[in-house]
């Protein structure tokens, strides 16, 4: 699709991972930087362990949705969901993927098989321009709270330098708009995610 200077971010994950909060925080960060932004969420059935998708469009589009092959950024909170989001990706896409699997109950019950994580990442790598893979769940645990995956992912996104925003704005939003007791954890989680991607960037 023809370039128009906008940044289209496709977020996906599993209910309970905080990807909706992440998309809202990206929206708040854009407002703080006077960047036009549209955030779209699906509520309702997508909670309770189902698939959660959201979009953040920065830089002018009015549309709440992203077309096929038109995501500039894929922020996937779970590897299987990253794979499911590939129709939105293209050579221009920078993908940031949490490698920590959340096995769907259909797999637990034996109705389907969960694909091998490495092979899923390979498939994603082959369909996007650049893949950053990290175990955000483990980093969140290192930061002191497994629930801080979204802070790690936003740190990683900031680290990948793909946002039309100052990474520090995102960090401010992630740390300042949450209840005081989560601030330190979020700060650490954000930094761990950011450092991990910056390390991958430095490694080429």
């Amino acid at each position, binding site marked *: *699709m*023809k370039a*128009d200077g906008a940044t289209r971010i496709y977020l996906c994950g*599993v*209910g309970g991972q905080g990807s909706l909060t992440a998309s*809202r925080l990206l*929206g*708040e960060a*854009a*407002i703080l930087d006077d960047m*036009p*932004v*549209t*955030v*779209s*969420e*699906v*509520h*309702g*059935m*997508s*909670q*309770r*362990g*189902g*698939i959660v998708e959201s979009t953040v469009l920065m830089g002018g*589009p*009015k*549309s*709440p*949705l*992203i*077309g*096929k*092959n*038109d995501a500039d950024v894929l922020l996937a909170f779970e590897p*299987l*969901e990253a*794979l*499911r989001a*590939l*129709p*939105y*990706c*293209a050579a221009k896409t920078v993908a940031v993927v949490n490698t920590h699997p959340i*096995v*769907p*109950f*259909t*797999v*637990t*019950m*034996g*109705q*389907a*098989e*969960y*694909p091998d994580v490495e092979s899923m990442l390979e498939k994603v790598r082959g*369909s996007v321009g650049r893949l950053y893979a990290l175990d955000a769940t483990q980093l969140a645990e290192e930061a002191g709270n*497994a629930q801080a995956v979204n802070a790690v992912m936003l740190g990683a996104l900031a680290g990948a330098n793909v946002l039309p925003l100052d990474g520090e704005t995102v960090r401010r939003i992630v740390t300042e708009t949450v209840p005081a007791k989560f601030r330190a954890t979020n700060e650490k989680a954000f930094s761990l995610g950011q450092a991990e991607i910056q390390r991958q960037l430095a490694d080429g």
Partner: protein
Amino acid sequence: MNPLLSAEPTVRLLLGNEAIVRGALEAGLGFFSTYPGTPSSEIGDTFFRIHQEAGVSFEYSVNEKVALEVAGAAAAAGVRTMVAMKHVGVNVAADPLMTLAYIGVRAGLVLVSADDPGCHSSQNEQDNRHYARLGKLPMFEPTTPQDAYEAVKAAFELSEKLEMPVILRTTTRVSHTRSAVRFGALGERKTKGEFAPDRRRFTPVPAVARLRHPVVEQNMIAAEEQFNESPLNRTYGTGTFGVLTSGVAACYVEDAVVRFALDDKVRVLQLATTWPLPRKVLAEFVAQVDAALVVEELDPLLENELRATCSRTGKLIPVYGKESGHFSLLGELGPDQVTHALADLLGFDAEEGAGAALPALPARPPILCPGCPHRATYYAVKLVAGDAPLYLSDIGCYTLGFLPPIGVGDYFICMGSSASSAGGFAATGDKPVISFIGDSTFFHSGMTGLVNSVHNRRDMTLVVLDNRTTGMTGHQPNPGSGVRGETIDIERIARAAGVEHIAAIDPLNFKESTMVIRNLLAQSGPKVLISRSPCPLFARKQLGQKREAAYYRVDHNLCRVCGRGEDGQCGLETNKDYGLSRSRARIAALPENGEGRAPQKMKHPPCETACPLGLCVQGYIEHVAAGNIEIARALIRQRLALPHTICRVCTHPCEAACVRGDIDEPLAINKIKRFVMDAETDDERQTYIAWQRNLIEENGKRVAVIGGGPAGLGCAFDLRLRGYEVTIFEAEDAAGGMCGYGIPRHRLPRAALAKDLAVIEGLGVAIETGRRFGADFTLNELRECGFAAAFVSVGMTRGLRLGIEGETLPRVQDAMHFLRQVNLGGLDELAGHVVVVGGGNAAIDAARCALRLGANAVTILYRRTHLEMPAIAEEVEAAQAEGVKLVELSTPESIEEKNGRLTLICRRMKLGEPDDDGRRKPLPSEQTFTVPADHVVVAIGQQPSLAPEALPLVECDRWGRLRVERDTGATDNPFLFAGGDAVTGPASVAEALQSGKVAAYGIDRQLATHPESVAVEAWRDIEAMGKEKRYEPQAVEVQLRRAAPALDPAEAVHSWDEVESGFTPADAIAEAKRCLACGLCACCDNCLSNFGCPAFYRQDGQVHIDPILCDGCGTCVQVCPNGAIVPVRDLSGGVS
């Protein structure tokens, strides 16, 4: 303070629904009512949070009709009012809505209808723009959150000006999009008004309604005039290709225009006021373009209006949209479809992507949360009612119960339909009907359906899943919540509605809930079950209730463990019904009060320990209980060579050991087994043979079996399954041994034995009959023929003699001889009085045969009492019922013949101390007596068929029994193994099969290329097995065992027909359900395949509980059939 209450103008990132709230606040809103429904819910939820601070009167109404009626009155009283609902909610509110247009309002009333194209969270994707036309109401359709904010303010102005309600229609992508919204200042608000009655307006009797209709039409004209000038409708572009759009679709149009620089090619009309249509604006649009594309979601309303405008203005231009195939009537639009249509019509290259092709990926449907009480309610109802009923569902979180593994929910239409549709199914069908409805949905519109079902006397059950909140839409309180307002009691409503059978359960206590449900479902007529347990999320977040910090883990010493050890597992597939049936049995065994731990399961249930063959008795019984007859049969066949025979003649020590016998009566295990085998068709038997034969891994080694009785057949069967080539050498004309010539036909029809022999031969065992050991072949010859080992089971076919005077008289014979003649021919009738001496099965068989041969009377003389008789008790009873007289404590000391009649001179015995086998020893008394007889049959035991010297190097005991190693059947001769009566002395068929099984194992150990890889028969360790603590079920309901139908004894004695005819399927299943499932089972997946708590996961073949997901509800502890789930007390530290 909530940013929405900011008094000053500012810019905020707002959800479309939040922008609507802010717009309403700025418009001076005084009253708000709603019923929650996605995608409208955040409007109500936001007001719920801020209404006190904002000074707005607020209510969650019981349903949308009520919400609108309340709102209509508030607005009539002069208070600016908003009412919000999802698109299908407007259907519920449609009745008041249609008439509200007539009677109108005094202050502004805005109805927000949030539509859901694409059915993200709805049961349909109806297009509510039709309601504006139907109700003759003005409609606004915003595109972005900013538009929504502005449209609300304009809607209030218009509503108040025209004194009629106005609809604001959003869609999911407007309500749930966040973007920057620039606020104005907050206005004054008025929450109190005074209604000024006007009977020529607000009481729409026909005469008044007729007066009001023209007012409505005039209002629509006034609205159109205003819309023709509305700044909310927007035109841009300088081209001549027209694009008409509204709602969120306008975003996609605008983005495409910018992206592909179409500004000089198109002229876009973006309508925000879509009804009444601003015809002037449309006419101007048509005048300026020479073709037009209409971009709208769902129905082609604007498209057809544009055609009408062409017709009206006389300028006919091509109109593209749905009819031209550029857009679908289905689902929501997105940037791709809009770009594609524009590129197609304007002829530019959009560089469209096709999207990566994906392999099939595992689905990730939403699922009931860990700790959700709905799951427990569904499980309890399924435990009691199984798959028999028609299960109706309704709209709420619990709708998710239709997904596997719960699978409950066959039908629903809309909110509240479960309570009424149940009546329709009950009236027209035979299946029991059970409807599930949430508490909020019950208040919404289930109550009326319930009244209807009671009034019309429908036989249905309504299960109210009372989790105290409106879970699916985000935990809004309802009239039963006790969070705001008066609390309404569902049970009292049901009682007042006239429901006679009402019960309430705590779904987290299965013991109690299943009992209550069973009792309730036994009633007829309308029934209500109230399942009370708060949604754990709601309890934590809104009721402030904290569960104890506990989670649960799986004890892998109990989960997926079989008492036989890893190698002894049956290897059968896990089965959903089997898990449920074992779970049911375990819950039945829980303590009545639901407190304390369930009794510990045994690794080896006593039935299995007692079985000489180590059959997995519990396994096949539970499969029968679950209706899986074929799996039960496969399990039986795994360890049993003669199933059709044994299920008729077994002495069933399993039943004597049954735990159920501690409570009422032991399970009728052997009769259930007989049902399973009798149900086998010829085709099924052939299928089994082909399947089993295919599994055999041939090892090329040959083994000879000498003697084709049960021991030989058992050994041959097991060796064959172990891969050996087996030949049976049988002296008689047919294999079967005692089963062929010892047991009479009324107990074992020959067809049953024939089926077993056919299977053994079908598996590839060769049977050579008429080949007598010693006479026709020798051990050396077997060796020379290439047999690597031989198994000797030549039995004890010669009857023991009493050793008394007169024993050799004619008409005195031993039972072996007698039965052989009866069974193989040679003795067809018998008259006079027959006296049988002995107390074993042979004695009973001989006595009953004598009756069938025509004896006038039959008497059994036994030296102990019936309590010590080794014969099967049921057989003794049956013989007595047929007329056999039992004379206890009697033994003959001599037999005399006088005038062609025999006289037995007998001594009366008395019982002394118990002897070695635990039975009290008979001691002679002083007393003697005589018994006259025409025939005497001596049935006191047997002696070996072979002379000891026939088997070189094999040691015998003083009774001539061969000595073998207990665990392998090996003799001192390394070529020879032995079993059967020749080793054990006269024993049961099962014991004979056991000795064959032991020797097959011993032979395999000796001949296998890798003896160490031959699995030990773990079940042989009877001593250790017997030491296990006996299972102690509590509070089991007394339920006596079922009897199988049998011939009338008076009839039975005149025929050789099988006396007992076996269980019916219903009886077999009912009897199997009496099993308490006291043992563990490795073939269990119940927590996953029936309960389905998402905190469970599988790793490396084991089941685990994720401590982060576990809610600590503990219901799984009761669900697990193995009792393998145990609490871990403390999350923070000391894990148990």
